[in-house]
């Protein structure tokens, strides 16, 4: 951690961590789940950044960058799951709209395999 | 090939599980032969190892070839087989094999579409238990404990009874706490010694400087509490009765004899091989306290068993009491107490198996699990009843069954160390067992008009669509369930009658240990 930039990294890291406090405040206070989720999302993104920061502080960024990358990719999954949860429970509670055809999201899709949705009452 | 046995004994069921997964899904009938052959290989290995060990002393096996000639001890993982765990290997493989035979078709009925998965879990459980037994690495033991626990949670939860699922959840929570405490204890030890190999830790801890180290002390407490949770020692027994009585019958036959016993083995292994008898019994000076805990466990287990109306639950509480026997025996801090405890591990495994198989057959045929609903059973199924009675007699401690001799050694240990409370608890519990079992035997022996229930049995059989099946006697269960029961009953008796060679092997295992060794016991 000798070189000058290590210090920069550490300072940046500390600032990042301190600035996470508002996010944690939001987590504590709420008031709704989705507020918390937003804060979580922020912390997740910042974690990826912090990993890079730590890597720089260790002077071994090459070793840390891999899973910062993994984080950047996977961080998405948690938020997506939460969002989907809210969607689905909403769909359950509220009135369902007439069936649309399944969205072909990704390339090698399979409209056939996604089971046909039962018509809503 | 023979020097590879310590690895093969584990690999056989592991490959069995994988093969079941690959081949069994398509055709469920393939599962059973795979299971039997895998366990048979294991059983053969266990016997071979026992012979090898009793002839030429402990076997060291270094996984990955990291033997002590190349690298310091503890770099690789060591498997070590001495007389003690060789005996236990034989017990585990035998019980597993017998249960496997028992599970023939039964497992298929209980888990209709999940038979392959059931058998996979079954075999992985065996892998875990065998692995716990052979390993000489404190952390490796944790991993294998998790293998066995995880599979057993699933086996318990697989049943159709909803209470079984709740019990499985409790079991999981308690089991995780137990395993975590163990892991933490190992961490404390690692922190103080820098190694994970049991022998290496032992060597380092032999330094008197560690006699007063609070870290080692806390490590010991943590490991002990962890293992106690796993073995359902009295105040920590809460998970056991429900988990074992509401799970599918095959599962209960497999878990009840093995899980707690293997945990007791782990405790003894930790006491003797990691901390050393000297440290545990002399530096620590806790023997009296733990033996009194064991006394409470025995009495509480017996009393709780007395209060039960369900057959399997009663047996479960008896396991709690039996665990008290073993813990107390191991902590008597003398040769005979330790011999008794180890011998009781073996004896109790078979006794419990015997009782659980019999109870399961009873329950299946009566469609009821309360004790007072077993009326007139002896008339209907004389062979099953014989097995049950043998198990019951062993539990009471009637000669020449194995249960008598384990009690015999335990009592000797108790008297020699002057632990009168333990002696009295042992006797009281024997009496309570006598009351319990004769209550059942009485009900099953007297019962209502036997002829009527006989017809009824036929009805039931045909109702279940098994009328075409060959049965030994009129109301008897199918041979695949009765034969293992009778074999187990025979083992219970033979283990008692021929206890001398077994005890000799146990003494060989304890040889040279400071407090519990035979030399130390000789006056």
């Amino acid at each position, binding site marked *: 951690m000798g070189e*000058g*930039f290590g210090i*920069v*990294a550490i300072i*940046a890291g500390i*600032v*990042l961590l301190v*600035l*996470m*406090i*508002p*996010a944690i*405040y*939001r987590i504590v206070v709420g008031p*709704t*789940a*989705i*507020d918390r*989720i*937003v*804060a979580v*999302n*922020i912390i997740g*993104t*910042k974690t*990826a*950044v912090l990993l*890079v*920061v730590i890597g*720089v502080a260790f002077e071994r*960024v*090459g070793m840390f*960058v*891999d899973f*910062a*990358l993994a984080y*950047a*990719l996977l*961080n*998405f999954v948690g*938020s*997506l799951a*939460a*969002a*989907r*949860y*809210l*969607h689905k429970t*909403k*769909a359950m509670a509220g009135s369902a709209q007439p069936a649309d055809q399944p969205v072909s999201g990704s390339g090698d899709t399979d409209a056939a395999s996604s089971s046909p949705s039962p018509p809503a009452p | 090939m023979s020097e590879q046995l310590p690895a093969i004994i584990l690999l056989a069921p592991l490959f069995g599980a994988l093969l079941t997964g690959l081949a069994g899904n398509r055709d469920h009938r393939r599962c059973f032969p795979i299971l039997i052959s895998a366990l048979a290989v294991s059983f053969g290995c266990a016997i071979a190892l026992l012979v090898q060990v009793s002839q030429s002393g402990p076997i060291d096996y270094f996984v990955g070839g990291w033997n002590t000639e190349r690298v310091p001890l503890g770099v690789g993982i060591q498997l070590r087989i001495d007389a003690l765990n060789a005996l236990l290997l034989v017990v585990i493989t035998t019980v597993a094999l017998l249960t496997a035979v028992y599970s023939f078709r039964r497992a298929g009925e209980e888990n209709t579409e999940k038979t392959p998965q059931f058998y996979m879990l079954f075999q992985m459980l065996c892998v875990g238990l065998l692995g716990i037994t052979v390993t000489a690495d404190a952390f490796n033991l944790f991993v294998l404990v998790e293998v066995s626990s995880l599979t057993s949670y699933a086996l318990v939860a697989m049943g159709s009874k909803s209470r079984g699922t709740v019990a499985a959840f409790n079991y999981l929570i308690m089991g995780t706490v137990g395993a975590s405490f163990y892991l933490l204890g190992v961490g404390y030890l690692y922190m103080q010694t820098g190694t994970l190999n049991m022998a290496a830790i032992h060597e380092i801890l032999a330094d008197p400087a560690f006699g007063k180290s609070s870290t080692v002390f806390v490590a010991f407490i943590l490991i002990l509490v962890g293992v106690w949770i796993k073995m359902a020692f009295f105040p920590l027994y809460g998970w056991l009765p429900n988990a074992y009585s509401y799970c599918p019958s095959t599962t209960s036959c497999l878990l009840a004899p093995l899980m707690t016993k293997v945990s007791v083995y782990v405790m003894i292994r930790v006491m003797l091989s990691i901390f050393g008898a000297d440290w545990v019994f002399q530096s620590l000076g806790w023997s009296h306290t733990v033996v009194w805990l064991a006394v409470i466990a025995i009495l509480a287990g017996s009393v709780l068993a007395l209060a039960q109306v369900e057959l399997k639950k009663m047996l479960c509480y008896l396991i709690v009491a039996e665990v008290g026997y073993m813990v107390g025996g191991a902590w008597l801090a003398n040769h005979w107490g330790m011999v008794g405890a180890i011998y009781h591990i073996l004896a109790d495994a078979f006794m419990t198996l015997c009782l659980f198989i019999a109870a399961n057959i009873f329950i299946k045929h009566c469609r009821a699990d309360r004790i007072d609903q077993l009326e007139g059973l002896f008339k209907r199924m004389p062979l099953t009843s014989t097995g049950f009675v043998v198990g019951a007699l062993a539990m009471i401690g009637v000669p020449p069954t194995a249960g008598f001799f384990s009690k015999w050694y335990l009592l000797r240990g108790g008297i020699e160390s002057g632990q009168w409370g333990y002696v009295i608890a042992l006797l009281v519990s024997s009496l309570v067992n006598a009351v319990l079992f004769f209550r059942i035997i009485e009900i099953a022996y007297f019962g209502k008009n036997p002829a009527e229930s006989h017809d009824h049995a036929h009805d039931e059989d045909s109702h279940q669509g098994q009328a075409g099946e060959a049965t030994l006697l009129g109301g008897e269960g199918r041979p695949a369930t009765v034969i293992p029961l009778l074999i187990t009953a025979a083992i219970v008796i033979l283990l008692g009658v021929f206890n001398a060679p077994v005890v000799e092997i146990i003494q060989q295992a304890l040889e040279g240990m400071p407090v519990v060794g035979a030399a130390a016991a000789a006056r």
Partner: protein
Amino acid sequence: MILDLVAILLIAAGLVFFLGAAVGLVRFPDFYTRMHAAGKGDTLSSLLVVLGFALHELRHFDGSADVVVFLKLLAICAFIMLTSPTSTHALMDAGYEDGIEPVLGEDGENALTETRNRRLKD
């Protein structure tokens, strides 16, 4: 040296944006506005900080390994840029579905409901 200076500047800028996001997260009155602050500020600040460190990695441009790290850092940027807005979007949507009422505008109209109505008409 100049590279380092630029890097530090970028990092500082990132931290400032993050400060903004953080303040917004605490101070804004309702979920949607907080989301607005968080989504934008957070993404941008992350990008800037990572970019800053990436530039730093180019300081001695001799071995190929360093370039790989630089590229990976750029990839992190790219993915943050891709995923963070998407998850913001998903959450926003979910929040709406969850029935969180935004603080209304001056005309008392819920902006989201309006869009929705319009789209239904199309």
